[in-house]
């Protein structure tokens, strides 16, 4: 009995010991100079830049422009209004249209009617938001378009009487039958705006890319509808609905293009783009290396460039065998995600990390065909930047810090 008691106690202590066991693993200090990992650097200054021109397209810009700025002219802008079942209300006997408004918005609180554009409508004219350029509208005229005149300008404020936005409202009730033409099976509701007054030579309006609906170009319908409640009772409701645009674009004319080889830069308005070639391939680094930092630095000519200009660098997917520098559409396609990178210019330098793409070159996953350098579409198209490759103090350089085994 005594021995059983002793054994049970011993077993209890053993279980307690095991359950209270705490393993611990602390690093021991040692001389690890024999380890094979080492940090190395590589500078590549064999970098060349060339420019090319593409007919400019401002379809994705957050503004609609009209007029002339910095020597660039925007003669016309287009807005397309979407097809919608609300248009069929026109044929509904229970619906009576009170008014139809085409509305554009501006952030300019000083806008007056005399400095606003004319609105035109045509149902068989088409534009492509992502492709249309000034080349598609050479000799364009609104002579055969419906002239809807100037808008009413409403300057809006908030409850504290602070300016919020300006509305440009056109009454388009006069073209209601054209907007709801059932005979036209290919009805496209296209509106054009053009500056006709001489009070201003340039205005900016908000495009559909600027907001998520609130200040988009739109058509607003105001109507009354008889709703049958019972056999001998109807209810008349006053309603309004909004139909948004499917696309909008400013048509910018870059004028004459200066294709001098020294004109190295970027501009959305001119369609100026650049190609950067860097002497880097799969054997530029030691086999099995990992890039920690790969920073491309290009100096900017601050005297002829905008500050804070956002630039996109995209590795070229396929090589293009051409000596031309002016194109209708961009012949150079970029790989895009995940190698497409962007950065702002700062203090006269454009600095960007190319780590991911260069690493994949060393891994054999990608081939270096050069980089397409373009201005972000959100930049002001009337501004530009120019690379200063002859800068004595800062040279174009690719600096790589990597770890090799």
């Amino acid at each position, binding site marked *: 009995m005594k*021995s059983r008691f002793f054994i049970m*106690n*011993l077993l209890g202590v053993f279980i307690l010991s095991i359950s209270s066991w705490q393993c611990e693993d*602390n690093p021991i200090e040692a*001389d690890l100079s024999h380890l094979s990992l080492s940090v190395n650097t590589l500078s590549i200054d064999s970098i060349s830049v060339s420019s090319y021109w593409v007919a400019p397209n401002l379809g994705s810009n957050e503004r609609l422009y009209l007029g002339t700025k910095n020597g660039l002219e925007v003669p016309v802008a287009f807005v397309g209004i979407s097809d919608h079942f609300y248009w069929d209300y026109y044929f509904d006997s229970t619906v009576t249209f009170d008014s139809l408004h085409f509305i554009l918005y501006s952030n300019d609180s000083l806008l007056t009617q005399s400095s606003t554009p004319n609105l035109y409508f045509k149902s068989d004219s088409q534009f492509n938001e992502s492709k249309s350029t000034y080349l598609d509208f050479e000799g364009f005229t609104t002579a055969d378009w419906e002239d809807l005149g100037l808008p009413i300008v409403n300057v809006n404020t908030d409850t504290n009487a602070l300016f919020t936005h300006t509305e440009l409202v056109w009454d388009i009730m006069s073209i209601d039958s054209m907007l709801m033409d059932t005979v036209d099976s290919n009805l496209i509701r296209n509106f054009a705006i053009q500056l006709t007054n001489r009070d201003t030579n340039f205005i900016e309006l908000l495009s559909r890319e600027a907001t998520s609906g609130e200040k988009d170009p739109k058509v607003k319908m105001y109507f009354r509808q008889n709703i049958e409640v019972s056999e001998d009772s109807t209810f008349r409701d006053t309603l309004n609905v909004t139909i948004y645009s499917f696309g909008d674009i400013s048509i910018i004319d870059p004028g004459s293009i200066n294709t001098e080889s020294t004109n190295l830069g970027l501009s959305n308005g001119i369609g100026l783009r650049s190609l950067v070639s860097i002497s880097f391939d799969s054997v530029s680094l030691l086999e*099995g290396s990992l890039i920690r930092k790969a920073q491309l630095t290009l100096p900017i000519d601050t005297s002829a460039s905008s500050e804070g200009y956002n630039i996109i660098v995209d590795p070229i997917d396929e090589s293009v065998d051409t000596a031309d520098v002016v194109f209708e559409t961009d012949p150079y396609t970029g790989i895009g995600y995940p190698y497409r990178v962007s950065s702002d210019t700062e203090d006269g330098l454009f600095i960007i990390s190319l780590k991911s793409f260069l690493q994949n070159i060393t891994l054999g996953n990608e081939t270096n065909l050069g980089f397409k350098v373009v201005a972000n579409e959100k930049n002001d198209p009337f501004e530009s930047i120019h690379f200063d490759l002859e800068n004595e103090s800062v040279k174009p350089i690719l600096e790589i*810090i990597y770890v090799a085994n």
Partner: protein
Amino acid sequence: MWPIKQFIPLILCSSLLVGQGTMNAFGLGHFYENQGITSAGNGLNDLVPTFQSNVSLSNPSTWHHLKFTHLFLSYSGDENSISDLPLLNRYSGLAHAGWIVPIKSKGSFGLAIVPYADQRITLADSDTTSFIAFEDTLNLVNSFARTGGIMAFKVGASYLIRENLSVGLSVDMLFGSSRQNESIFFNGSSIIQTSRTKYSGVLGEVFISLALQEKINLFASVKQTIRSLNGLYTEKYLFDDANGNGFHDYGSPSDFPLPDSVSAKDEIRFTGIHKPEQYSLGLQSNLNKKTSISFELRSIKDKGKLPDPLTLPINDWIRHSNDINLSLTRFPNDLSLDLVDKISVRMGLAFKTHTLAQTKTIIREIGGSLGLGFKFRVAGNQIDLNYYLGKRKFPDTFNTEFVQQLQIGISLADLWFVKRRQK
């Protein structure tokens, strides 16, 4: 009898204090044979019987002395502390598990699984290196971590040739794997080189037990490599451990480059990375029926060659080891009903030297062990507890290390393979 309550604080303390050690960083790791005690039932000795009278769990030539089949398990908690540094490393794991079947007191057969080499180690560079990169000063910190180890599956047998002479044989099949992480930390994250090595090899050991006189027994063994330890080495691509978890994975942020953009390099086969040659000699003198003193001598030489691509935590490995053990054992009286007579006591001193291959310097270890065993039931079930304290002195760069081991073992004895008539 001492109240059991008096043992509780002592055992609890031991359990909390019981590691990776500096020895794990040399070559293929810390060979378990170089531990202070390899099994709770054996104490310091390998060849000389201390488990039971005439029986050593790690010497097959003694197994036929067992009266019953034995299943045994030994669990070990290890702690390594480095002098002058508030640095503790402790871990625990299986020390010895086996099954021995005596065959009519003339032979035996046994299987066992034991750790062979412990490769767990985390090392940090003692110095921070400065590196100038494009006018920036980078502070580089190297570290190395290795996990895993090598196990041995042992198949053993013995045969009684004459009344005073028996031979034993053990074939040790080595297997295991390790993962190495070599990293360099700078600018907020580590760049890690991961590699894996899978090991396999076969060793053979022959044992002899000879009763020279009534009171003196001689034991000897020779271990040779049948198939040297080979390693199948796979190196992974370097990665930037952006999420800091030590693994090449997706996360927030994901590691660089993305795991699916790289592939492992081709496997490399390393041959002959460990070829041990071991000679052991043990002498036991029975002072009386229950007490014996013993002396054990062992010499191991590793004729293996570690290849360059296999990065070692410390750029050296043990080429040659010599051990001397002196121990005193008191066996239980199987016939006595007195509780104290069922307790066995093992104590001893050990002195070990290890010569490093590259620097030719010598690691010296002196240690002592104290163990208790309690035998119960008719068949001879046994619980063993063994404690080892050792002082390991390294040459030059490493501080002296104190090693503590606490092992707990249990063995269950029973009759196997006997047809019993149903009642």
